[in-house]
């Protein structure tokens, strides 16, 4: 029995005790407290035991809560907007209007796809130039309507392709960052899985950036870093350690503002729980940000990025 399975047994036992206590009016609080402490310890042990490389694997799981199913579960309703109005549409980066607990928002998210066919179509979540030009367009529509902007990030990176280059994918990413910094309403980014490089940061220039416990955010993939710096992709695990790409490390670096806990085995073991945890965090942050006057919001946003990395780090 591995740690995750032991954890599950303990959790079931605790639930059973609580049920017994309630049904029979018994005071089992001491027993329950003991169990809960054991559960917490085991949970911490499991999570802490994960190496950065182990988290990279978790973050990349195709069954990780993300994409359209996640948006549909997260929001009361979602209306997709499509197309960049100049070249085309991109299934790897999607977005539209949504209602979140009755409030209007605009939303942008990477789509990786769950089945091989979906994955092929969405290029495993690598959006091309059209995707980022579309994202910029949707940001502008949201700006016109003064809608808070929520982005859900899960991409290996922007698509490296001839057409992407021909349609100026670099310019599209820069335009997204710029537009997001100007957004006249709260902006919030949540890194759900892989936060890969320029393709991630294009949607992450937000007032606040949250991250799931086993998600990653990195300037380059560990394999890429290993190839370039160690001249051998086999050093990916070592690169992953050096890159400080895990949620807790990112929090310490000031790159993200909050870590959203996952279910013990990883977010994919509990889709609904992940949705609830993300919804709770998102609503809390949007509510805080919505209370700020616009000029204060923009001032804090500028400050958030102007000194990133300048003020110290993990040293």
């Amino acid at each position, binding site marked *: 029995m591995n740690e995750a399975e032991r954890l599950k047994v303990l959790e079931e036992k605790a639930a059973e005790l609580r049920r017994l206590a309630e049904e029979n009016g018994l005071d089992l609080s001491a027993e329950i407290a003991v169990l809960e402490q054991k559960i917490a310890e085991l949970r911490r042990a499991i999570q802490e035991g994960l190496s950065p490389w182990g988290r990279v694997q978790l973050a990349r799981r195709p069954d990780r809560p993300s994409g359209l199913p996640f948006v549909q579960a997260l929001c009361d309703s979602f209306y997709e907007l499509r197309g960049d109005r100049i070249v085309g549409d991109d299934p790897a980066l999607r977005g539209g209007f949504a209602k979140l607990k009755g409030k209007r928002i605009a939303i942008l998210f990477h789509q990786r796809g769950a089945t091989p066919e979906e994955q092929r179509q969405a290029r495993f979540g690598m959006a091309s130039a059209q995707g980022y030009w579309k994202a910029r367009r949707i940001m502008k529509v949201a700006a016109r309507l003064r809608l808070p902007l929520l982005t859900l990030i899960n991409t290996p990176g922007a698509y490296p392709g001839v057409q992407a280059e021909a349609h100026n994918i670099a310019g599209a990413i820069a335009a997204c*960052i710029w537009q997001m910094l100007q957004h006249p309403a709260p902006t919030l980014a949540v890194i759900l899985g892989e936060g890969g490089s320029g393709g991630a*940061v294009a949607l992450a220039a937000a007032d606040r950036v949250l991250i799931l416990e086993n998600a990653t955010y990195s300037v*380059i993939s560990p394999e890429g870093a290993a190839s370039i710096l160690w001249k051998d992709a086999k050093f990916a695990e070592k690169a992953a350690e050096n890159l400080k790409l895990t949620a807790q490390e990112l929090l310490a670096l000031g*790159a993200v503002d909050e870590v959203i806990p996952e279910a013990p085995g990883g977010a994919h073991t509990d889709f609904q729980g992940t949705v609830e945890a993300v919804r709770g965090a998102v609503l809390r942050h949007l509510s805080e940000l919505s209370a700020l006057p616009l000029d204060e919001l923009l001032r804090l*946003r500028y400050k958030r*990025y102007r000194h990133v990395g*300048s003020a110290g780090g993990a040293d």
Partner: protein
Amino acid sequence: MPIRRDKRDRYVEIEVSTPPEPLWVRCESCGELIFRQKLQENQYVCPRCGAYFFLSAQDRVASLVDGGSFVELPPPQVVEDPLGFSDQVSYKERLGRARAETGLSEAVLAGTANVQGIPVVLAVMDFRFIGGSMGVGVGEILCQAMEHALQEGKPFVLVVSSGGARVQEGVLSLLQMVKVVAAREALARAGIPYIAILTYPSTGGVLASIGSIADLTIAEEGALIGFAGPRVIEQTTGERLPPGFQTAKFALEHGMVDAVVPRAKLREELARALSVLVDER
């Protein structure tokens, strides 16, 4: 170290180093042996085949501004090696080597200068310094340069020569993309002009942030302009790259830049651009 293209008109990257100064330099593109002083007089363009050699930030500054007008801005203090990064060599050691080899504190050199009499704030990246990559230090120098342009009401000119983000500073490098765009937005709000000059190479996170959002963008003739490297594209997608892919001409034809200019005419072109962007004094 000249920049070459192979028969399919792609770039061939050639390792950068500063050899002990010999009197003669071999052009790796055409094989010609060139007298070093001659090469320098020709602004590091091979007199025989026209291949572009890398220009150091110091040489680039000299080639663009009025003699003696460049005054470096005080280099900012930033945390070095924020991740404690180490690959085959520790990042601290790499930094030290780059400093020794280039005489620069970071991969960008920024200061005030005059270009044909027009005062500007100028920042020039240097590919010799860890690939011209942008980490916290480069981001900070760029931001302070833009802030100085804002305070002084002078146009900001950036010469890009960068492979992208500084891998050894991880996510903090990535976030410099946001940081420099935030400073650029402050320039825009104040109506201060910003001119970008894209050279070899203008790629990755620098192109995908500050490099792509100038008011006016000039490509040097020998530039490489693209988000992803040609090799990455071929490996990831299996696509065949079209001839001239990611050259300055490709960028012009695909609407990404306003002009393509040979190195010898860059100073004049920049002055012409500046003159329409600043009011008469």
